[in-house]
Each structure stands twice: as structure tokens, then as C-alpha cells.
């Protein structure tokens, strides 16, 4: 990416942050419902991009993302409430515990393939939820209440950009190429000397790490968490965003995360009809565009060359 495009992206990001910041915290002409959805958009983008690393780029069908989100949410909530951790440290703690759980769960289960892996990870998500219901320390089925509300637009924005940048760079690195090779042909990757177990576990636990961040953001915005929040439905939601955006496209995952959030917000007054419309749209998209919104293409900084043509040649080539 050229220096020029990088600086344009930085300016655009800064403008997005600044405009929303002014609208919410300074002038306050965005109502609370819209603010909730802005936070949700960030959380969903983090979930979609991180799950895309596992499903879209490494080709491992995982259905337990909500479980890792739960770990992040619970650990960060307990560390701020019981141990008085500062907020960034609490988020990091949640993400790290999630990361470690990712290694622990990934090592044995990632030997399984395809649908068997899907059901094993689904099982782990349900186990995490089932165990949380039974731990009195974190409130059992009632969950934790009264978590300090620290997550705001700035934190969400920073975490979201951080996630997208890290995962984007990871995919472009040698490690990311190894993951893509595993997705395309696992046997060939192994024959080429790629340590498939290492990379599958790495991608899986990295995905868990960012899901943990999403959980931390969630718990410190909605100030109450319950095991039921992190049911299978949440994992499905994340998978839906990944597939809608396009397997193997970071930009696609970002757009799908935003799109699904705002679609849900727009349809919320319809009650149960909302889910009916949502599911019909889902099936229709899969039938008419099974590769998802973006396929495996990325929107790169090059788009600015088209929007803002510059003098002289394209130094990006």
C-alpha cells in the first residue's frame, strides 16, 4: 500500500471517529438506541473479523466463538469488579485467558476435520456456557450485574481498528500465507513442511483472543452478563457475518459486521417478523450469492486512486 493511501485511510478513520465522537459525546444528537448499535457494530466487526481468520482463512469450521466471547466478558468483568484492574488491563486479561483456552481447546480438537470439528467446537461453546451456569462465584444462571460501564465509542473504535489491523497484517504475513495454504489443501501444506497443527492452533487461539476482547467490550457496556447471552445463537451470528461478507475477505467481514448490526437495528420494531425477514434474506443471499458479499476479494487503499485521482502515475504497482 502506498504511503499516500495509508495516510488517506488514517484521515478517513480519524474523521469517522471524530464525527461519531462529536455526535455522541459532545453534541449528543445521536439517541441512546443508536449509540447501543454503534457499540454493537464494533463488537460485531471484531467477532466477524476474528472468526474469519479461523473459518475463512484457515478453513477450520468453528462454531464456538460465543464461548470465547463469554470467557472474555466474564474474566474482564471479574477482574475490574473483584480485583480493581484498570479497564485496558481487564480487557487484556479477558483476551489472554480466552487465548489460552483457545490453545487448550484447539490442540486436541483441531485434529478433527470439517463437520466433526464444527460439532466439537459447538460442544465446547456449550460446555463453557454450562460451566458458567454452575459457578456460584460468577452468579450462576443469573450472571453478573453492575459491571462498571466504561466501554464508550472511543474504546470500541480503538479496539475494532486494532483487531482489523492486526488480523489484516497477520494474514499478509508468512504465518497468514501458511494458514491460507492449509485451507486450500491441508495434505499439500503438510507435505510442504508447514506445521499444520501449529498454524491451525495459532489461528484458532488468535481468533479466541479477539473474541475475548469483544466480550470485554460487551460486558463493560451493557453492565450485566448472563451465560444465556453467549448461547449458540451468538456463534451462529458470527458465522453468518463471516459467510455473508465472504470467506477469506477482511473487508467483507467488516462490511457484514456493520451491515448485520444496522439491519437488525432497522428491523427491530417488527418483533418476531424481524427474525423472519432476517432468515429469509440469509437464505436468499446464500442461494443467489453463495460466495458472500465480497467473495475473497479485498477492498484496499487502491480505491482512493479511483476516487481521488492523483497527478502522475500509480506508484502502487
Amino acid at each position, binding site marked *: 500500500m502506498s504511503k499516500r493511501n495509508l495516510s488517506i485511510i488514517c484521515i478517513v478513520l480519524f474523521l469517522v471517529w471524530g464525527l461519531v465522537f462529536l455526535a455522541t459525546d459532545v453534541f449528543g444528537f445521536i439517541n441512546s438506541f443508536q449509540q447501543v448499535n454503534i457499540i454493537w457494530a464494533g463488537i460485531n466487526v471484531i467477532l466477524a473479523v476474528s472468526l474469519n481468520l479461523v473459518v475463512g482463512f484457515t478453513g477450520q469450521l468453528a462454531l464456538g466463538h460465543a464461548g470465547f466471547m463469554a470467557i472474555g466478558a466474564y474474566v474482564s468483568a471479574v477482574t475490574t469488579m473483584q480485583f480493581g484492574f484498570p479497564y485496558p488491563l481487564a480487557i487484556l486479561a479477558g483476551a489472554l485467558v480466552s487465548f489460552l483456552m483457545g490453545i487448550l481447546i484447539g490442540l486436541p480438537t483441531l485434529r478433527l476435520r470439517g463437520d*466433526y470439528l464444527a*460439532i466439537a467446537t459447538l460442544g465446547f461453546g456449550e460446555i463453557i456456557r454450562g460451566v458458567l451456569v454452575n459457578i456460584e462465584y460468577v452468579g450462576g444462571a443469573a450472571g453478573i450485574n453492575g459491571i462498571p460501564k466504561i466501554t464508550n465509542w472511543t474504546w470500541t473504535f480503538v479496539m475494532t481498528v486494532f483487531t482489523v489491523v492486526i488480523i489484516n497484517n497477520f494474514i499478509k504475513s508468512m504465518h497468514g500465507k501458511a494458514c491460507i495454504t492449509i485451507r486450500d489443501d491441508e495434505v499439500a501444506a503438510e507435505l510442504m513442511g508447514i506445521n499444520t497443527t501449529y498454524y491451525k492452533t495459532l489461528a484458532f487461539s488468535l481468533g479466541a483472543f479477539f473474541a475475548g476482547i469483544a466480550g470485554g467490550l460487551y460486558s463493560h457496556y451493557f453492565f450485566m452478563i448472563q451465560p444465556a447471552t453467549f448461547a449458540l445463537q451468538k456463534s451462529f451470528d458470527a458465522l453468518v457475518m463471516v459467510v455473508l461478507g465472504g470467506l477469506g475477505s477482511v473487508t467483507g467481514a467488516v462490511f457484514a459486521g456493520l451491515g448485520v448490526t444496522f439491519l437488525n437495528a432497522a428491523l427491530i420494531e417488527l418483533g418476531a417478523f424481524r427474525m423472519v425477514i432476517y432468515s429469509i434474506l440469509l437464505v436468499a443471499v*446464500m442461494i443467489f450469492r453463495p460466495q458472500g458479499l465480497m467473495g475473497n476479494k479485498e477492498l484496499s487503499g487502491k480505491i482512493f486512486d479511483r476516487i481521488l485521482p492523483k497527478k502522475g502515475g500509480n506508484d502502487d504497482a
Partner: protein
Amino acid sequence: METFIAQILNGLSLGSIYALIALGYTMVYGIIQLINFAHGEILMIGAYVGYYCVAVFGMNIYSAMVLSMLASSVVGVLIERIAYKPLRNSGRLSVLITAIGMSLLLQNGGLIVLGTDYVPFPQVIERVPYHFFGGHLMVTSHQVLIFTVSILMMILLQYIVGYTKIGSAMRAVSHDREAASLMGINVDNVISFTFIIGSSLAAVAGVLLGLYYQTIHPLMGFMPGLKAFVAAVLGGIGVIPGAMLGGFLLGIVEAMVSGYWSTTYKDPVVFIVLIIILIVKPTGLLGKNTSEKV
């Protein structure tokens, strides 16, 4: 000892319901490699049709079962034709997402059409406790009914798959779809037939679940559907005896955990058992180990 036997009996009757549902999962998976997440919702539709037949039209439970089998089959085939057939040649994930979408659609459509209340299922078969061995062993008439109906269904299924023409066509398609269609088998019809059988079994399971839990609800299908899917994977997905074994095993594990420990632990334990078995035997208990072609 008495709790042990009581829990075994509980587990057998619940497990036989799981086995019925798991059979539908496993057959559909065996033929088009699709985890049909909407299967639990077909069960729910079967339960509601059974309920209307009994409570509104005053039929007896057996004719209600037959009618709910018919209705569920129609829904199952419709789902297959509308949602799954256009995706027959696309990636596994898009089909999986479609199945999740169909499941959400039927759940929420059910909430709109059928209402959000729990409906009491009429207890048409009186709950009679039978005592054996001087009262040490109690079997209820419901358990007997559930168990008998399930076993009859399984025998019928074994007969259809093993000894009829359409059954051997199903086996051929699940073995190699391309070759089967070259041999003149109409693959689309075979797939539809598989959905008919799977949905009928799910409908029976739905009516039996209504009798077992005594209430029905538009979201009642999700959890049993998930458990049955776990049962199918446990036994080796795509293998018919595996689904039965997995269903019974799951039912007994659940009953044991509820009886000796706590009901809140039964779901986590079920999944822990699943993962241990998958780690030891990655294709399930009766699954075939396929070697990978390079």
C-alpha cells in the same frame, strides 16, 4: 439400585426419542453431507400437527401420528426443494448457513403463527404406573409407548433401507452420487424420499416428546434437535445403527447425570462425552475411517 434402574429406564425412553431424531440427521447427512439444522423445527411442526389432531379434531394418538408424519414430510420436502436444492453444488458452508437460516425462519415463523405460549399436550394415553418385583421397579405406560413406537419405527426404517428398491437407491446415492445417477437412479427423488423418511421420524419424535414433557412450544425443537445431532455424531454420522446407539447412549448419560448429580450439569456432560469420544475416535463410535486421497 432402584434409582439406577429407574434412570436406565428414563434414559432408554428419552434416548429412543433422540435416536428417532438422530436417524433423520444421519440419513440426510449420509446422502447430501448436510447438517440439517432445520430438523428440530420439523419435529416441532410434527408435534403441533399432532396436538391439533388430538386436541381440536379429537383423533386418537395413532392417527394423529400418521397425519403429523404426512405434514412434516411435506414441510421437509419443501425445505429441501426451496432452500437446499439450488445449493447442491456450492460450498459446504453456504449450505450450512442456509440450514441455520431455515431453522431460524421456522422458529420465528412458528412464534408468529402459533404464539409464544407453552401449550399443554393432551394426555390421551393415561399415565399408568406398572410395578414389578414387589414395587421395586416402576414402568409407566408412557415409557412403554415411547419405547415401543420408537423401536417399531427403527425396524421399519431398517426394512426400507435394507430390503426395498428405494432403500438400495438411497444406499447407492449415499455411496457415490455421480455413479448412482449414471446407473439411472433419479438422485433428486432419492434425496426427497430421504427427507420424507427423516421428517416422518422427526414428527413421531415430536408427538412422543409432547407426551413425555406434556407441553409443546414453537422453540421446543431446538435443544432436542441439537442433542440428536450430537447423538448422530457420537455414533458416527451417516451410519444408521450409529444414530440409534448414539441416541440411547445420550439418553442414558443424561438420565444418569440428572439422577445422581444435577440437571444443570446434564448438557455440559453430554458435550464432554461427545468430545472425548471424538478425540479418541474421530469419526464417532461406529464411523468408518476413510483414508484421504491425495
